[in-house]
Structure formats: structure tokens, C-alpha cells
């Protein structure tokens, strides 16, 4: 439907005649206010042909209203047809969002060829923009529900006593490729995995869900780090897109014995924070998984006592840049972590996340951010 706005009935008829072959119905309005009423009354207005000088409410006022209207209305293109032929008026109308501008009186050629062609083009390009917007909205809604799904898959820290766990996860695009999971192997024995699938977004998110379900299958069979990681690599060979892989750390806490047995597959080294903030970087590393047939795995056992905390993170943390483009780096992160050594473990992660946001200068990150802290709750 095309809305023709002009205070002269004859002008409206002439324009309707000019556009008669475009296959649209027509509605008329004699001033800006009537035009607003018509737009509100008809949801399917595809274009407005707008006169500027009209009594009561002029065309500029209509453009003003249109500019502030909801997006469905703002998407309706406006072609101005006015007796105002000075460049200032033309500029003003175009700046206010008019799609095109014709000066009155319209010549025969303009009525027969130019106006119908430009109106047709305007309607088509507005329809394309609208369908793009609807598509983007639909995608966003799907990503948001994928995010809720992914979030619901994260472990519930309260279920893993006597291991205390706190984590913060900030996927950079609703859904992320970082993941984290816990699995109870015995009353005092708990398996933990943190992982980072290369890339981010929906594809990385789906891959991380797949790795998580493989992890749950394998850990139930054999929880030893070297065995589980080897199995994971074998299962992932040829599954990722070419050149993609996963890094991570997998370990088993035995809280009764006070030990942590772990192996690192291509992931940034975790930290062991002693009581009071002294930091030890757990440097043992092996290959990332998913590309190489035979991976190097170095399984290690360390003491993990009541006054220690294990800090795990993904590279989105250490590669976070400040406004000058300088990365936080593992050293910078370690300082930041140590400075909060005295904090209550249950709120520690949130404090560190706040520090990372402070360093970055924004809450919008370019990569997924995952930060995990574990401690023993035996004494509490």
C-alpha cells in the first residue's frame, strides 16, 4: 500500500495515476497528522509520497515523527514531492531520512518514468532491509536460547563438596567455545576439565558441547588423566574443521589424600595459589587435541592442601587488551590474581573478573573468558 500525502486533491490523483502500474493499493492524507493516522491505521504501508508545505502539520514535522517511530515504521521509505526547490530544503529533508526528493511540478517524463521507477526501487530496498533485520533478530533469538542451554550445562558448584568451586564465564558472542565441567568419581574424588575450542560463536559452542559429552563418557570408564586425554584425542581426530583443535586441562582431585593429578593439553598453565597469595605456575604441558595422531601427554601429581587454591583460565583472559592494545599476559594476570589472595574464595572469581574488566576498560570482550577457582572445603 502506498500513502500519498498532499493538501491538494488533484496532486494526489496525479501521483496515484503515475504509480498505478506498480501493483499497490493507495491511501491518501491531506497533512502530516492525517498521514500519521494512516500509517498507524494500515500496517502494510510500503512507501510514503510526501508533500512538505501543508496546513496544520507539514511534511518536515511528519519526517520528524517518522524518525522517532518504531523500527517497522522507520523502515517505510519516504519520497518527497515538494514545491520547495531550494537546496537547503532538499538537504534538510534528505538529512531527516527522506529516501528521495522530487520538485513540483513533475514533468511528464518524471510522472511516467522517474517517479514510478524510484518508488519501485525504494520499496524493494526497504523490503530487503526489513527481511535482513528480521533474519538477524531471529538469529539473535536462537543464539540467546543456545546461550541459555549452554549455561544450563555448566556444573552446579554446590554439588561438589568437599571441593569448593567458583567460576565466571563470559562468552564473547552469547555462545562460546570455552567450557568447564566437574564429575564426581567418589565421595572425596572429583574430576575437573576446562577446555577451549579454537574460534568462538555457535560452531565452537557446539564443538565444546560435544567434547563435554565425550568427557562424561570417558571419565566414567577410566578417569586417569593420560588415558582420558588420549581417548579424547582419538575421538576428536577428523571431527573438527581443518586446523581447529581444543586445548584444556584435566585433573582429578583426591581431597582425602590431599592431591591433584592432572595433565595439560596445550592450554595456558594453571596456577596454584598458596595461602596468602604466593603463586606457583604448574608448567607441565602436552599437545592440544584433535589434529595429531599421537599426542604428548605429561601426567603429574601435586599436593593440594586445605590452604591452596587452583586457578584455571582460558587464553581470552591473558590476551585481553587494555585500551592501548597491550595484552594482560600471564604475568599480569598472575599479579592480579595474587593481589586478591586474601579474598574469600567464594567471591574471588568475581573480584578478579572485575579487575580484568577494569584493565580492559569495557565489558565487551573479543574472546570468550572463563575463570575457575577450586579449593578444599574439608575444614568448613
Amino acid at each position, binding site marked *: 500500500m502506498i500513502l500519498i500525502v498532499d493538501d491538494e486533491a488533484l496532486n494526489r490523483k496525479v501521483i496515484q495515476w503515475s504509480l498505478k502500474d506498480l501493483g499497490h493499493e493507495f491511501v491518501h492524507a491531506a497533512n502530516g497528522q492525517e498521514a500519521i493516522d494512516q500509517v498507524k491505521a494500515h500496517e502494510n504501508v510500503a512507501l510514503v509520497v510526501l508533500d512538505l508545505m501543508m496546513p496544520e502539520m507539514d511534511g518536515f514535522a511528519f519526517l520528524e515523527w517518522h524518525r522517532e517511530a518504531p523500527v517497522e515504521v522507520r523502515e517505510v521509505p519516504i519520497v518527497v514531492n515538494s514545491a520547495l526547490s531550494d537546496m537547503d530544503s532538499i538537504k534538510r529533508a534528505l538529512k531527516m531520512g527522506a529516501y528521495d526528493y522530487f520538485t513540483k511540478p513533475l514533468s511528464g517524463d518524471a510522472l511516467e518514468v522517474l517517479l514510478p521507477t524510484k518508488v519501485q526501487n525504494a520499496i524493494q530496498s526497504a523490503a530487503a532491509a526489513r527481511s535482513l533485520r528480521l533474519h538477524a533478530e531471529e538469529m539473535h533469538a536462537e543464539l540467546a536460547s543456545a546461550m541459555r542451554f549452554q549455561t544450563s550445562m555448566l556444573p552446579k558448584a554446590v554439588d561438589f563438596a568437599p571441593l569448593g568451586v567458583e567460576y565466571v564465564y563470559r562468552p564473547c558472542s552469547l555462545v562460546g567455545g570455552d567450557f568447564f565441567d566437574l564429575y564426581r568419581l567418589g565421595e572425596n574424588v572429583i574430576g575437573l576439565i576446562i577446555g577451549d575450542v*579454537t*574460534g568462538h560463536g555457535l560452531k565452537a559452542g557446539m564443538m565444546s558441547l560435544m567434547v563435554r559429552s565425550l568427557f562424561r563418557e570417558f571419565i566414567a570408564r577410566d578417569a586417569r588423566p593420560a588415558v582420558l586425554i588420549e581417548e579424547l584425542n582419538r575421538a576428536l581426530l577428523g571431527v573438527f574443521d*581443518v*586446523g*581447529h*583443535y581444543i*586445548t584444556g586441562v584435566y585433573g582429578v582431585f583426591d581431597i582425602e589424600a590431599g592431591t591433584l593429578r592432572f595433565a595439560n593439553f*596445550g592450554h595456558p598453565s594453571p596456577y596454584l595459589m598458596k595461602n596468602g597469595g604466593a603463586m606457583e605456575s604448574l608448567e607441565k*604441558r*602436552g*599437545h*592440544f587435541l584433535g*589434529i*595429531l*595422531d599421537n599426542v*604428548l601427554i605429561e601426567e603429574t601429581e601435586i599436593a593440594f592442601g586445605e590452604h591452596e587454591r587452583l586457578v584455571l583460565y582460558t*587464553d581470552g583472559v591473558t590476551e585481553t587488551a587494555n585500551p592501548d592494545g597491550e595484552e594482560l599476559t600471564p604475568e599480569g594476570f598472575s599479579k592480579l590474581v595474587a593481589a586478591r589472595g586474601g579474598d574469600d574464595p567464594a567471591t574471588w572469581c568475581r573480584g578478579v573478573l572485575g579487575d580484568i574488566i577494569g584493565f580492559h576498560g569495557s565489558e565487551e570482550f573479543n574472546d570468550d573468558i572463563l575463570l575457575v577457582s577450586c579449593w578444599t572445603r574439608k575444614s568448613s
Partner: protein
Amino acid sequence: MKIETIQEGEGLRIVFHGNIDLASVDDVRSELMGIGERNSPKYFLDFQKVDFVDSAGLGALVTFHRAQGGSEIVFQNVNERVRKLFQITRLDSVFSVE
């Protein structure tokens, strides 16, 4: 990213002009795939003009290395930063770096 190949005896020198990272990795991957089809018995990966490699770039290099299982692959002119990355990821046990 420009990748230059130079025949050196029975080996093939591959010179990367630029960083091997997320921005260039698609080009690097497809170029290397084409180069791999030449089935050279020896490849020299020349990092003279490479400042850094990121995680996406590493994936492309490992993929090439794996695909050329029968050939000898030697990394040359690798700077300290890239060498350190190979060490941290333990790929120094897979790649032969001169």
C-alpha cells in the same frame, strides 16, 4: 599474506610474508594445501618474514605437517617469539626447528 615457493634441489622452500594468524589463516591453509599436492620429499618452512603466529595459525601448520607425513619438514629462521610458542605448546617435539 603472500606465500612464495622456491625449488631448492629436491626440496621446496616456502617463504611466508606476514603473520600466520586468524586474519591470514584461511589463505595460508588453502595455499599450503595446494603446495602439499606437489609431494616434495622435503619442505623448508621459512619464517624470516613472520613476526608472530597465533592459535589459528598453529592449527594450519600442524595440519600441513600431519598431511605431509612422508616428507621431511624443517622450520627455518624462526624468531624467539614463535620458537617460544612452539615450546609452550610442545610442538617443538613434532616440528623440526633449525
